[in-house]
Every structure is written in structure tokens, then in C-alpha cells.
């Protein structure tokens, strides 16, 4: 077929209802987040000593750090969904939660005696945390991948991985109030592990579903 003929077919194709990519992704995020919240409310619920937690700086560090990770991941995912993305400046913001967490770890190491380091790191429910975060992240990741299919990412696997990171951030935000382990040593070990699992799944899903 000659290109001019091909163009004629394209030009005759009706204008679709304009897709608002940003809006779709925001909607996906909201739906996924609501689903994760429902799972959380049905299966987990906040921990019994939540009142004690609210008064602890460690508890708030955990929450703020989850948010500081979730926000740039989501914005980056949104940006990577367009082919002419310039993500560099935004990607730098992803360093912030790690700096914050590292500072928390340093303070924790200073205020807690060495004999307790290991028990704080392993915590009460390391396994539970590493399983729950990806479980809560799953609806968010699935919704994001569906929404991203109407985007045009130049790097499908990377975009999928970032969607995974965003979903892990959202899940951590939901899970944190239920997680009895507040020590930064615990958070710095198991939350990133759970996040890596989500990013791996996201990368595979991205490669499979986001290529165009």
C-alpha cells in the first residue's frame, strides 16, 4: 500500500472521544486504592495499639516515608506514559524517601543499644509485611497497567516497574498503620524488599502489556 493511500485511511478514521491520560491514571489509582483499602479493612484492620503508635515519631516516619516514595513514583509513571517524557528532574525526587529513611536508621542506631539491633530489624512480622504489601499493591498495580495501556511509554518494562513502585508506595501507606513494627531498621529492610517484588511484577506486566 502506498503511504499516501494509507494516510487517506488514517485521516478518514473518526476522531475518537479524546482520551485524557492523566485523568485515566488518576481514576485507576483511586479505584485501585479503594480496592486495597477494602482488602485492608476486611482482612487486617488497624493494629490494636494504634493510639500508642500515633504518638511515636517512628510511626510517623514510616507513614511520611511511604508517602514520599509513593508520590514521585506516581508522577514519574504518569510522565513515562508519554513518548516525549523528560523524567530526569522528577526521578531525583525518588532519592528523598531513601535519604529520609537513612537518617531514621542512623538515629535509631544511636538511640537503641546494639544488642537490640537485630531484634528490631527482624521485628515481629517480617514475613507478614513482605507478603501483605504486594497483596495490597496488586489492585493498584493492575488498575495502573490497564490505564497505562492507553499511554505510549517508550520503555514499557521501566514504566511497568515504576507503576509497581507506585503501587507498593500506596500499599505501604495503607499497611503502615497496621504494621506493629515501627523501627526504621525494620522499615528499611522489609519495605524495600516488598517494593522490589512489586517492581519486578510491574516490569514483567509492563513488558507484556504496555508495548505498542
Amino acid at each position, binding site marked *: 500500500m502506498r503511504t499516501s493511500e*494509507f*494516510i*487517506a485511511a*488514517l485521516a*478518514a*478514521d473518526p476522531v475518537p472521544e479524546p482520551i485524557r491520560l492523566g485523568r485515566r491514571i488518576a481514576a485507576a489509582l483511586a479505584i485501585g486504592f479503594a480496592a486495597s483499602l477494602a482488602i485492608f479493612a476486611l482482612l487486617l484492620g488497624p493494629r490494636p495499639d494504634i493510639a500508642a503508635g500515633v504518638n511515636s515519631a517512628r510511626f510517623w516516619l514510616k507513614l511520611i516515608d511511604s508517602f514520599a516514595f509513593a508520590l514521585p513514583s506516581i508522577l514519574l509513571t504518569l510522565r513515562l506514559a*508519554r513518548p516525549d517524557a523528560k523524567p530526569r528532574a522528577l526521578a531525583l525526587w525518588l532519592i528523598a524517601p531513601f535519604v529520609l529513611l537513612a537518617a531514621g536508621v542512623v538515629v535509631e542506631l544511636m538511640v537503641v543499644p546494639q544488642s537490640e539491633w537485630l531484634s528490631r530489624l527482624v521485628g515481629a512480622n517480617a514475613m507478614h509485611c513482605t507478603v501483605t504489601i504486594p497483596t495490597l499493591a496488586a489492585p493498584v498495580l493492575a488498575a495502573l497497567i490497564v490505564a497505562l495501556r492507553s499511554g505510549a511509554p517508550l520503555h514499557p518494562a521501566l514504566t511497568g516497574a515504576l507503576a509497581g513502585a507506585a503501587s507498593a508506595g500506596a500499599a505501604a501507606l495503607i499497611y503502615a498503620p497496621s504494621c506493629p513494627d515501627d523501627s526504621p531498621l525494620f522499615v528499611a529492610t522489609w519495605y524495600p524488599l516488598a517494593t522490589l517484588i512489586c517492581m519486578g511484577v510491574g516490569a514483567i506486566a509492563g513488558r507484556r502489556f504496555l508495548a*505498542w
Partner: protein
Amino acid sequence: MMRASIAGDEGAYRRLLEDISRSVRAMARAAFARAGAGDADIEDAVQETLLAIHLKRHTWDPGQPLAPWVYAIARHKVVDLLRRRGRRRIEPLENVEEFLAAPEAEDPHALSDARKLLETLAPRQRDIVTSISLDGQSIAATAKRLSMSEVAVRVALHRALKSLGATWRRSIG
């Protein structure tokens, strides 16, 4: 012009696609030469890029310049096509503006895989695409000939183009 096209100005959209096809052809030609690939697949690269631009036009942000968006898609498609054909990866092109500014005449004899791909469509869809692209008929005339409503023809055309895009990805190995 892209704004007018998105708003539904068919003539403007056609002229825009023609401009883009010339730029992309120049770019693809340079990329193919650099990769040591023959000229045979250049029209495929151009058409595949045009189809991607068409199907993904909503990912262009009207607040941003159009050229980098077009170039990003074209480069993605050209690199993809070269890779699928088993040639070595091309280095990124440096002078985008130069390529975008260099219009080139279309080779009237350049046929492409698209015709082969048309065979994979359902008969009705194929009929519609052929009627509009190869025979140059309007939507209205095609609708009349096939005794379909214009809306049905438009929907069928849109589906056909989308499935063409999907088949294209899978078929070229």
C-alpha cells in the same frame, strides 16, 4: 494543525500526516543507512509510525511542541523495526531539526507490508480499508456501496486500523 486535527478537521489532519510522513521518511532513510539496512522496509517504518501517531495522538500534550513527540515515536518505531529485522541497533540521531526540516518526495513505487497485512483483516473491514485508502472513496460513498450507516463504517475503519496495528507488531519478525 494537530489541534485542528484532533478537533476533527479531516483535511488538516491529512496534510499534517503528509508532512509528518516526509520527515519520518527522511529520518528512517538516514537510520536505515546508518544501520546498513536496505531501503526496502523504509515505507513500512513510515506507515507504522503514522499508525502509531494516529492511535496514540491523545498522548501528545497540546501545551508541548509537536516535533519532539513525533520524533520520539518515529525513533521508537524505526529502532523497533530495525531490531525486529535483526540488524544492529542504531545510535540516536543528533540533528532532529535537520531531519524534520528536510521534506522528501514519496517514491510512488514504494509498496509495503500493509497490503499483506490487510489480508489478515475480516473481509468487511478489509473491504472498507481498501475502499477508502486504495480506491480513494469517501466514507459516505463506501457506506452507500456496502449499505451500511456512515457511523458503522467509521467504527469498522477504526477497529480495522487498531487491529492492523496489533498484527503489525506480531507479524514482522
